[in-house]
């Protein structure tokens, strides 16, 4: 499952980050590492951008960025 497909309220665990090296580093640097728990807070129209909560703070991601976050859904 990819992050941009998740609905608000969903809790998931990051299982991988794909995409080019600069984007991966950026996402890893923002705390989206393997095993990190996140919650989808809300989506803008067309899910672009989306807001998630990770490591105790809120992060907005473009759809094109969220597509590169592979997740495992824990709770819907």
């Amino acid at each position, binding site marked *: 499952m990819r992050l941009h497909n998740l609905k608000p309220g969903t809790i998931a665990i990051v299982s991988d980050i794909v995409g080019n090296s600069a984007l991966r580093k950026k996402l890893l*640097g923002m705390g989206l590492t393997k095993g990190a728990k996140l919650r989808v807070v809300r989506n803008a129209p067309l899910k672009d951008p989306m807001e998630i909560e990770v490591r105790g*703070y809120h992060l907005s991601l473009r759809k094109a960025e969220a597509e590169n976050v592979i997740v495992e859904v824990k709770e819907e």
Partner: protein
Amino acid sequence: MIKVALAGNPNVGKSVIFNALTGAKQKVGNWPGVTVEKKEGICEHRGKKMLIVDLPGIYSLSAVSIDEKIARDFILNEKPDVVVSIVDASNIERNLYLTLQLIEMEANVVVALNKMDLAKSKGYRIDARKLSAELGIPVVPMVAIRGEGIEELKNTIIHASHMQRKPVIRYSDGIERYIELLKSKVVENSILPEYPSRFVAIKLLEFDEEILSRAGIGEEVIKEWISSVS
């Protein structure tokens, strides 16, 4: 004069601390070649003079954005005597990532653990002394907006300026084997000898584009080197 750099994520109270340290003695300019503001100021404390340089607010030092590149280049090339890593205590987990990267660059890091009041109201109980022991560097708890901890930060900077602490962040054994191998290659081939060899080795292992291009070696060389580790 003691050269001090202030580093931290955006919104950690960096400007508040910069102003508290320097007062009216500030100079505003640009970083060379770019339209990013550079603020410098002088802080005098107990007969010592400190030049305080405010680095751009950044989340990491991977040098993908211009702000990150400015901060990384300043620390690696200008080698400040002390780097103050300003951490938002109410968002400590994400903030400490930058602190770890600074330690890895072998900067002489002092942590300014700001917004302790906010952390407390969020229900966090942070043991600054234990954090200091775990990281191997000084940690100063602060509420900078109320001036709390500023004097202690000044004292800590001066003390740290003549006491270099260079703790090593250890990875798992599997990763350490690659780091050790690349470190020996870095030393053997004098790759970027002006930078700490372990730091260069870790960046090569990350295929950090900027370090690779500065060193003038390609990813395939690194891949070949690490292929010998089983």
